[in-house]
Every structure is written in structure tokens, then in C-alpha cells.
């Protein structure tokens, strides 16, 4: 138990202090690359640099409005604010995938307002077309060249393969933790689970493997806890702030799985075996299923994925954590709710807005779900 609590405290500390992590990396003479979601992180690792997730944060933007309209999605607006106000100072570069129109606009704003090298790239949306693979390999070659310029060295196919193996191992360790956490819902509350998952986005892959494996092992040594309250699956981009997540625990609700971009969605699709390391990186994007950011010929893929998550984890409901003004996620909302409800489970959405700390309406919805 002492191990679990001490390890959870470490993850908690990291999740709340990414700046401290960045400073410690810089003090050790390492180069750090800021990474929005769906970036080929093994390339960063292969070049001996550290990928750090960029997830915006709770801030009321004051200067981002110079470039980003008020209806810019909350996470990109706060990320731009942090970029413009020096919060990301020290990053050697930032990888930005142009996954949606807002990313495209943010790319232009970043170049105008942030003094950190930007490496933008575009994923193919028609992922079934045979040309998609070749196209993405070419995009990733450009990313690799840019990263090599930042690193001041080159990397070989073998270097990238080794990094891919490391990231795949990391993915498995994270999935194992999520599975173990469900047997200890008294300890792994909605807030603690989030802190662990968020901390991972700021840690080196090798450190994740070491620390998280320790936590999972420590959890597995404890007797299972029988949770008698309700259980939910979270889906969306992020689920913050803590006050909102604490509302689940206050209403005797546990989070037993997530389809959040900041959390499990990033780690559920491994880099597959392929003819080359670059092909493996590209195939991973082509293999992603059930994500609002990745067009799928099966328009019900995300709904089907969520229903199966509910059934596999014995959950009672799906909670859509709707990033404010993220139209890409918003379009999924009606059909996801219908599919989950048609399958016999509850589904409802809560608004995630990084520019305000008021979670009043979300807490009302969580309480209402708990009461019925």
C-alpha cells in the first residue's frame, strides 16, 4: 500500500508540474520536443530527444485572442496562450499535426506569435487509399529531417525500430496499468487515474515503463477491491479539471476506462511490424479506429468501440467530455449517444472548457446520473 501511495504521489506531482519536468530535462542537457496528439514520437526518441505532450491547460487566455478567435477550440487556444506567454520556453521544437481546421489556423498563429520552431505535418484522411501510406511516409520523412536538424544528428532505420519497440512496450505497460486499476477503484479514483495518465505525457518512455510497471505490480499485490458504485467510460480529448473529476468520486462513480485523446486513445494502437521503420510509423495512423480525428469508412466505429468498452469493463455509462468548440468531436456526439443508449446504457455529455474553472453544470449532470 505504501508503494502505491508513494508512486501515485509521484505521478500526481509530475502531472501538476510539467514545467518542473521540462526544467529538469533541460538542466540535464537534453533536448525536448513539444508534441500535440498523434505525432510520430519514436522519431524523437530515436534522435535521443524527449517528447513532451502539449495539452493546453486551465487558463483564461489573455493574449491568444490576437490570433485565435473566441470560438477556437479550448485546448488549442490555451496552448497558443502558453506558447505566446513563455510557458513552453525551452522546447527545441513543437510537432503539430494538422488534424482539423483549428489546427491549421493554430499553425499560422503559432508561426506569427510563438518563438518556438514549429514542425507541422498533415495526416492523410482517406486512410484506405493505397496512396495514403506512401504520402504519410513522405510526410514523416520531412518530420524526421526537421527533427534531425534540431538534434544535430541523424538516425538510422535501426534506431527508429528500437524506438518503436520502446514505445510499443510503453503502450502495453499503460494498458496493463488501466486493467489493473479497475481492480482497485478505491485507490485509483477518477482524479488519481487522470493524474497518472496525464503525467505519462510528460515522461520519457523508458521512465514510464519503469515507474508505471512498479505501480501496476504494487497494485496487483493488493487484494481486489469490490466497487459497488456506478462505473463509467470517459471519451473525448481531455477530462479536466480535478474539481469536475472529483465529482465522480463524490457521487460514488468510478472511471473504469477511457477513450480520451490525452489518456488511453494515444496508446491503444501499436506501431505494427512493417517493411521499414517509417512504414511502421505510418501504418500506425492508418490502423487507428474509432477516433474523431481519423476519418473512418465505418461511420459507427467509435460508437461500436465505446459500447464494447462499456461491456468489457462492466460500465453503466459513457460520458462524453466535449472539448469546448471542438467541432470535430461535437459531430460525433449525437450518434455516439444514440448507439450507446440503443445498446441499453446511459450516455451524456459534459462541457470541457479550459478557460474557466467553473464545473457547475458538469457536476449537476454527474450528480443526476448518480441519482437515477
Amino acid at each position: 500500500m505504501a508503494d502505491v501511495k508513494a508512486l501515485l504521489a509521484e505521478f500526481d506531482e509530475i502531472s501538476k508540474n510539467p514545467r518542473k519536468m521540462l526544467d529538469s530535462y533541460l538542466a540535464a542537457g537534453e533536448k525536448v520536443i513539444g508534441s500535440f496528439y498523434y505525432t510520430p514520437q519514436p522519431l524523437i526518441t530515436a534522435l535521443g530527444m524527449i517528447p513532451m505532450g502539449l495539452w493546453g491547460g486551465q487558463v483564461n487566455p489573455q493574449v491568444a485572442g490576437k490570433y485565435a478567435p473566441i470560438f477556437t477550440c479550448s485546448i488549442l487556444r490555451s496552448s497558443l496562450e502558453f506558447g505566446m506567454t513563455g510557458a513552453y520556453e525551452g522546447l527545441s521544437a513543437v510537432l503539430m499535426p494538422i488534424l482539423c481546421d483549428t489546427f491549421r489556423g493554430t499553425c499560422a498563429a503559432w508561426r506569427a506569435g510563438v518563438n518556438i520552431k514549429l514542425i507541422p505535418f498533415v495526416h492523410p484522411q482517406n486512410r484506405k487509399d493505397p496512396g495514403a501510406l506512401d504520402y504519410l511516409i513522405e510526410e514523416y520523412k520531412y518530420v524526421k529531417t526537421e527533427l534531425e536538424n534540431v538534434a544535430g544528428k541523424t538516425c538510422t532505420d535501426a534506431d527508429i525500430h528500437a524506438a518503436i519497440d520502446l514505445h510499443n512496450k510503453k503502450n502495453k505497460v499503460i494498458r496493463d496499468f488501466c486493467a489493473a486499476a479497475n481492480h482497485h477503484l478505491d485507490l485509483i479514483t477518477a482524479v488519481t487515474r487522470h493524474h497518472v495518465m496525464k503525467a505519462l505525457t510528460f515522461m520519457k518512455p523508458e521512465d514510464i515503463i519503469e515507474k508505471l510497471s512498479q505501480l501496476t505490480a504494487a497494485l496487483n499485490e493488493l487484494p481486489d477491491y469490490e466497487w459497488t458504485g456506478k462505473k463509467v467510460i470517459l471519451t473525448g480529448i481531455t477530462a479536466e479539471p480535478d474539481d469536475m473529476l472529483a465529482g465522480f468520486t463524490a457521487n460514488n462513480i468510478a472511471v473504469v476506462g477511457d477513450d480520451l485523446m490525452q489518456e488511453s486513445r494515444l496508446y491503444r494502437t501499436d506501431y505494427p511490424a512493417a517493411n521499414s521503420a517509417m512504414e511502421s510509423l505510418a501504418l500506425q495512423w492508418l490502423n487507428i479506429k474509432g477516433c474523431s480525428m481519423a476519418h473512418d469508412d465505418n461511420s459507427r466505429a467509435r460508437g461500436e468501440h465505446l459500447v464494447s468498452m462499456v461491456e468489457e469493463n462492466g460500465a453503466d455509462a459513457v460520458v462524453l467530455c466535449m472539448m469546448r468548440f471542438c467541432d470535430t468531436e461535437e459531430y460525433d456526439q449525437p450518434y455516439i449517444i444514440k448507439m450507446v443508449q440503443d445498446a441499453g446504457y446511459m450516455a451524456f455529455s459534459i462541457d470541457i472548457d479550459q478557460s474557466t474553472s467553473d464545473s457547475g453544470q458538469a457536476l449537476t449532470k454527474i450528480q443526476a446520473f448518480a441519482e437515477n
Partner: protein
Amino acid sequence: MKYALGIDIGSTATKAVIMTSEGKIAASAVVSIGTGTAGPKKALMEVLDKAGLDRDQITWTTATGYGRFSLEGADDQKSELSCHAKGVSYLMPGTHTIIDIGGQDIKVMSINDRGGLVNFVMNDKCAAGTGRFLDTMARVLNVEVTDLSDLSEKADEVAEISSTCTVFAESEVISKLSTNIKIENIVAGIHQSVAKRVTSLLKRCGIKETIAMSGGVALNKGLVKALENEAGCKIHVHEECQLAGALGAALYAMENTKKAS
């Protein structure tokens, strides 16, 4: 005789209901100021006074509404979604869909035969279509919000308000006033604007007969009519619609009163 108190502390009004252990409403009160004001205390005093009771004669107090956690002495708090569901189900058995336009949000709920929530949606992004939107429009038109219903009844056409944002809609209303469009027609346009927004939520939640509207805004007959036109269905309104949330809270309180005895 045991008494249970339900108090609904909203953003713009406070409502209170005292119920007897026989399931009857002993007294009720509505005060037109909400959380963070003297409203809750005033509503409490008024309802106790009407029932001829002291606070210590109340066995259980359940608070609901946006300010539910701010009431001193409440025994528990319930979400306004659950309370409206329970309250409407008590007032109008057989209701399966509820619309509640509150001071700062719109709720649409699907409920089962026992008044339990099956599904719910709320406006997330802005104040458009809420009670606050109507307050703002009334202020721009220099009329009382309670007059909006009668004014819209006298409209001979609907002056469409296309903006969904409260601030932009305010500018649009001022623009229409400056071109001498009749206030009555503008009010009809305001109601239509709210009705369109509520209807989109209604469709998202799912429309199942019988449909009822709760909350103080339901007293605005012009708005209810506009909503019926947009949604294409009959909307039922109980004369005590404004008390639905407080009544639901009182029903929860009464359940606890019975459990405690």
C-alpha cells in the same frame, strides 16, 4: 404530522415547497432572486410562515438548483435534473419528456413512468435561449419580462431574430427597433428564436409524448406556443410549473423523512 421541505435555489429565483407526510403540499413560495442573494432565506421564511411552521418542525430539507450547496441547514442536495423529473411526474403523471428553461440553462429530459431520468441534455455553450436571454431582450425592449407573453399574442407577423448569441441578438433587436418594426413582432421573433434552440435540444434528447414544460418560463404562453409550432407537438404546462424543481426536492425530502422514522 411530519413535514419535508424542498428548496430550489436557481440563478434568478428561489422556490420552496413544504410537503406533509400525507403527500400534500402544505405551502409554497416563489421569490424572484436566486443564489448568492437574500432570496433563499426569504423563500424559506415565507414558506414556513405560510405553513405556520418553525424550521425545527421540518424533519428533512433537500436543496436543489444551482445554489443547492449554499443553503445552511440542508440535510442533502439533489440535482435539479432529478428534482424536475420527480416534480413534473408528480404534477403531471404520464409525462415522458420535460423541457425546463432556467435562468442560465435549458434542460430537456426523458423520464420513465416512475419519474426517473432516462436521458437528458442541456445547453452547454452559451446563454442563448435561456431565461437570462429573455430578461436581456425584455430590458432592450424596455418591457417587463412578464409582459412578453401578452405582447407576442398581439403580433401580426414574426420578426425573425437570426443570431443565436445573446449579445448579437441584442444588437439585432436594437437594429429592428431602429427600423420601426413593431415590438410585438420582435417579441414573437424572440420567442421563435428561443423555440428553435430548445427544439434542437428536444430532438437531440428524443421526443416522447406526453411533453411538459416546467419552470417559470413555462408561464410565458407566447413562448410555449412558439415552441409547439417549432417542435410540432403539444406542450403541456401545469399551473404550478414554476414549483416543479422545489416540489421534486420536497418529494425526495419526504422519502428521507419516511426512511428516518
